[in-house]
């Protein structure tokens, strides 16, 4: 069943209540019910997938399907905890090697591997297998583009929107619940990473305070307390309200042009953001290949051309930062980016609280994350 706008009717069991108690206190029972009805497809099962998947499985989604036929490598095992080390010498795929650990993290979640390539996915398949979200992990930019388009083309009952563009026309229709497949993309490069969200038109609940107009009295200002006595002494009534937000599609984001007139704010952005886009450019120019430590010179040339075309100063991205993005990512960076990605997926599928809109970058040198609205 879809978890988008429909209330999940089944109550959680006592066992689930006990297990999920601490998180239900945080995001509420409704959100938990939606989570537990959510089916998620992850395209790509590199180490970053292990981090994201661990968090989603622990949160109690309905099912997680991993799609990655690439063979398990020693490097994969080395930078992750999710693959079964006993399968190192077996002829196994990355997706399959992750299953047993994921299953044991939370046996209540259906975890499976799906064979095939991302190009083989169709709107019908997404609808028939009832996915609420597709996560493209460490995928080449062209795959991101096609998956992003694919998710937007899925409508209820498996119909494909013929023009393939985003569906906004029927959003007010109450007769038909529109299925939206939420699209996420994430990757880590060196000590940096990004997470991208396209939730189309996203509706969510959020808690806000309602304060009935009453004569303001600063009550219980106790002379004995040294600290401000207000810690909870004036609780505010809260209620859930519905809000909505519009998201840009991945294509528009790729076409982002930075305004050279706003140099001040551009300088304040993390260089990791420019690096992320530079790496997309590199993939486009190199048939989807990932840039590595040997590609520094090619990247420098590419960056100069890119900066020139946008009339940006070349020193927005220097060689040191560039190099820092070419190593295989370390475990803590994967954990951070994976944590952020999972958190946003949880918000998105549970329709509770607003997921960020729309491009998060983690800069491992500054140890800082930031969100931009692009596209």
């Amino acid at each position: 069943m879809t978890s988008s706008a429909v209330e999940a009717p089944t109550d959680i069991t006592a066992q689930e209540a006990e297990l999920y108690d601490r998180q239900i206190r945080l995001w509420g029972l409704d959100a938990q019910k939606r989570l537990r009805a959510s089916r998620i497809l992850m395209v790509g099962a590199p180490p970053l997938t292990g981090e994201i998947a661990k968090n989603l499985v622990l949160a109690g989604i309905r099912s997680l399907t991993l799609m990655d036929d690439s063979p398990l490598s020693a490097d994969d095992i080395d930078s992750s905890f999710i693959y079964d080390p006993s399968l190192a010498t077996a002829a196994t795929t990355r997706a399959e090697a992750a299953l047993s650990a994921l299953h044991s993290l939370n046996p209540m979640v259906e975890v499976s591997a799906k064979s095939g390539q991302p190009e083989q996915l169709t709107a019908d398949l997404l609808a028939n297998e009832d996915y609420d979200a597709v996560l493209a992990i460490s995928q080449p930019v062209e795959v991101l583009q096609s998956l992003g388009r694919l998710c937007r083309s899925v409508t209820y009952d498996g119909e494909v929107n013929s023009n393939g563009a985003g569906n906004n026309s029927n959003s007010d229709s109450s007769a038909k619940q529109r299925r939206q497949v939420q699209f996420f993309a994430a990757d880590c490069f060196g000590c940096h990473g990004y997470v991208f969200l396209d939730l189309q038109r996203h509706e969510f609940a959020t808690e806000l305070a309602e304060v009935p107009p009453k004569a303001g009295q600063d009550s219980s200002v106790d002379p004995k307390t040294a600290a401000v006595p207000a810690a909870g002494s004036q609780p505010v009534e809260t209620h859930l309200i519905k809000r909505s937000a519009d998201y840009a599609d991945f294509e528009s984001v790729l076409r982002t042009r930075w305004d050279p007139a706003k140099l001040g704010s551009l300088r304040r952005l993390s260089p990791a953001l420019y690096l992320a886009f530079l790496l997309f450019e590199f993939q486009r120019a190199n048939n989807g290949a990932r840039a590595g430590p040997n590609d520094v010179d090619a990247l420098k040339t590419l960056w100069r051309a890119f900066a020139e075309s946008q009339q940006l100063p070349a020193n927005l991205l220097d060689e040191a930062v560039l190099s820092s993005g070419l190593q295989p990512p370390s475990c803590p960076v994967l954990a951070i980016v994976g944590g952020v990605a999972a958190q946003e997926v949880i918000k998105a599928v549970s329709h509770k609280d607003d997921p960020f809109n729309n491009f998060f970058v983690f800069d491992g040198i500054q140890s800082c994350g930031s969100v931009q609205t692009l596209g």
Partner: protein
Amino acid sequence: AGNASLAREVASGSRVLVVGAGGIGCELLKNLVVSGFRRISIIDLDTIDVSNLNRQFLFRKEHVGQSKALVAKQSVLKYGRDADITAYHDSVLEEKYGVDFFSGFDIVLIALDNRAARNHVNRLCLAANVPLVESGSAGYLGQVTVIRKGVTACYECKEQQKQKSYPACTIRNTPSEPIHCVVWAKYLFSQLFGEADPDQDVAPDTEDPELSSSSSTTPAVANGSQANEQQSQKQTTRSWAEATGYDPSRLLKKLFADDIRYLLTMSVLWQRPGRRAPTPLTDEQLDGSGDAAPQSDGYQRDHAVWSAAQCCHVFRSAVDQLRRRYAERSSADDYLVFDKDDQAAMDFPNPKCYVCAPQPQVTLRCDPSILTVGALRDRVLKAELAMVAPDVEIEGRGVILVSSEAGETESNDPQPLARFGIGNHARLRCDDFLQRYNLLIIIAAADPADAEQRLPDGVDFQIVGDLQSVQATAEAAPAAAAPPPATSGRKRRSEAVESGPLGSGEAKKARLLDEADDDDELEIVAAPKSVDGASSQEPDIVLLD
């Protein structure tokens, strides 16, 4: 490849201590082992509970009841990394973990959930001159801080904000919010079953300063005999309870009827405007015999609102269980310890309290002659209260101070609020453009001359209220203090604008991570969200006297 292999080399030779094997501890241990650290010690006094399993992922159902540190070690060893891990099922506060112990490490990582242990480890690391990485999380928020003696501030250099301290008189006489009830109940638990502590009395407080502040005679004088009885009861709550065999009926009557009646005689307490006087329970409610017990199903039970009679029923059964357990204790010196994972102890605080009266209010403490309109909009409404495009109107005058339409009120931005006649008790109606979010902000002008009202140094304003409910955004993962998301809303922006030193994100980051920079620091006073004490961080109760 140079940096990566150097990192691995350093990692494999380093001796690391992880203090705590809970939520953060599990993540840390996993990251350390996978990153190439080989000599790791981990210490935690706790055992595994089923409610840990949703995030403390090194533990499984079959491990419930076992030591966290030991199971964490076993689980990461299965990653096959050849790590040398020493696990201590012990309290880091024990004497044996002194300076010598800490000196044996190259770095210490804190993954604790309480301040006392943090202070202790902080001091030992300073004494041993070992770098410390301190971290903590609660709900959607978290922080990581590096502490290096002589280089950075230490954990105790700056007074930790949000020290949850509750004056004795408030707890005993005039509780007004759920957290007071929880504290009261914990004290009652101690009085009856726990380690005797004269500071944790629950009987009405005749030394309440509010009583002596008025010129009228205090009940202690007017009702001398009652006061004497109360005095002697104060010292002997335990022996009184023991003498009555912990009879739940008599306990209920004393606590929720007799003591309440006594409190009511302190009439001056109930004259304060906005404070509701308590109502003693009737005999019918106390008996509660006819009423069904609350639903026993876990989730429903804890989240439904119970009637007075149901509360009494639960109280009785909790007292029954606890007195039996107390009777079975091994020696006269032994006592019960309150444990949030112990169902009988958790039932003990009544989830519905009859002495609480909600007093909703969001107050902005500031200096209106300094705080500008622009700052109100950007730092208060947008950054802290997550409004997207607020409109602010000065109530009663129909004057629009801030308009969400670009260009309309920009000239107001640099002006201090006082220029618009906004002073103490001024009321500002704030609407987000979505029209369904209304917030009344009441200005409390902090008089700099008044020591009690003055804002702490370096703090421009304080928002008083339950911020977690008011905020619409959530923070990113604990290890990175990511700023709140860029505004989502009716327009998609084509340029990047939200992050940067002047953006809301930097301010939050500054508060969470930057010890050295006091400028424009935000101090938020936030209320705990849930009634029970079972949040991820046990609140530290400090009694001021």
